[in-house]
């Protein structure tokens, strides 16, 4: 029985606004739908964890929904452990399960034992290129701050740049395609195969 897809991913970061503008410009040229450019987003994101009292097991889920468009569904995501078995792979790989849900999601998760870990607001741009997505996001405190030009107080000045692609199982061709694309975006952004367990 399939229990999710495999997400291939690479992470990078940029810190200056000039670099951001140059990267947006470059991605507009390299990705699909150049006339329209990127897809902007402003999302509320909450991380939930369930755990056993023995401390042996825990599991986290991410819930996010758009703050730009009212009535859009919540998106529930589970990421498995990053697979570190094969270090020769060009990208990091993890199990990924996603489902759109109705508005009751926070109450539902709370009733079945999930506790809120943290909440933040993410704002940024999504680009598509074939099966790949490039997401550039900045993270904010979820409390509205009208004094700040973005409407929220930033948690950091850096932007996270995530390149990802999902397929039913690990795909070497897709990994190579992502690696090649990541090379094209240098030196604006340097992508890394981020494996949290190795820290």
């Amino acid at each position: 029985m399939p229990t999710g897809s495999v997400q291939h991913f690479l992470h990078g970061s940029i810190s200056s606004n000039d670099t951001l503008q140059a990267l947006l410009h470059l991605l507009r040229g390299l990705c699909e739908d150049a006339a329209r450019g990127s897809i902007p987003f402003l999302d509320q994101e909450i991380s939930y964890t369930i755990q056993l009292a023995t401390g042996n097991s825990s599991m986290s889920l991410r819930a996010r929904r758009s703050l730009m468009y009212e009535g859009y569904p919540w998106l529930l995501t589970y990421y498995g452990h990053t697979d570190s078995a094969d270090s020769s792979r060009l990208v990091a790989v993890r199990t990924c399960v996603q489902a759109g849900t109705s508005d009751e999601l926070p109450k539902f998760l709370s009733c079945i034992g999930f506790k809120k870990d943290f909440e933040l607001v993410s704002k940024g741009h999504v680009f598509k290129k074939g099966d790949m997505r490039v997401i550039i996001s900045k993270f904010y405190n979820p409390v509205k701050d009208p004094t700040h030009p973005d409407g929220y107080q930033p948690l950091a000045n850096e932007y996270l740049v995530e390149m990802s692609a999902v397929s039913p199982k690990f795909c070497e061709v897709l990994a190579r395609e992502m690696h090649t694309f990541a090379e094209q975006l240098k030196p604006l952004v340097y992508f890394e195969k981020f494996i949290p367990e190795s820290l």
Partner: protein
Amino acid sequence: MVVVMLISWESPEGMSPGHANEKLQKKIEILGGKILGKWDVDCEVYSSLNGIVGLSDTQTTQPANLGGATAPQQAIYVLHNSNYSLSTFAILEDNTVLIADSSFDQFMPHMKVFYKKGQRSDAKGNRYELNEFIIKTGVATFGGSQQKILLLEITYLLSDYVHESIGIIRELAKLLLDNSFPGIETPITVREDKKFSPSDLLLQYKALFSHVKKPSTVK
């Protein structure tokens, strides 16, 4: 949307459930009902295992037919309905309904340390169209048990509100089931001032599957 009521009924004395169901189908056809095809609803119950941090703090009640020596603190009823084939309905004991994409099913195996999968129950049968009604006949079976319950699901296509529809649905059910008609009430989960929604229907199935040992009108 439409209004849908689920009625569980018992076969007359001396008649097997299969025979009683066939007789009902014949009657619908004689009245002019056209068969549209098959339907099915299935339900899997996941019960919480001991030791989930903070779960006892939440407002939970004991699920019905789960068995076992220790009563679980929470249960998740995961239901699918062939009418909404791309969706999964996850329902809790307190009738909180989460409607999700069908990929929600893939979360459950990852939660097996916290929630144990119970037995699967299902209901299936034939679907008919009769003027402004869709009628489903069928049998519900409960995993691990020989028990079978006869079902009649009536959809009234001309209204969105239960209080406007329950009278005409009751009349049709009476006509179809004769002496086997058990009576129907507005389910307690349905709010009369709100439009009927798919959740209201799946809550009726959840009530059916969680009261396996007491076949009666879904209230």
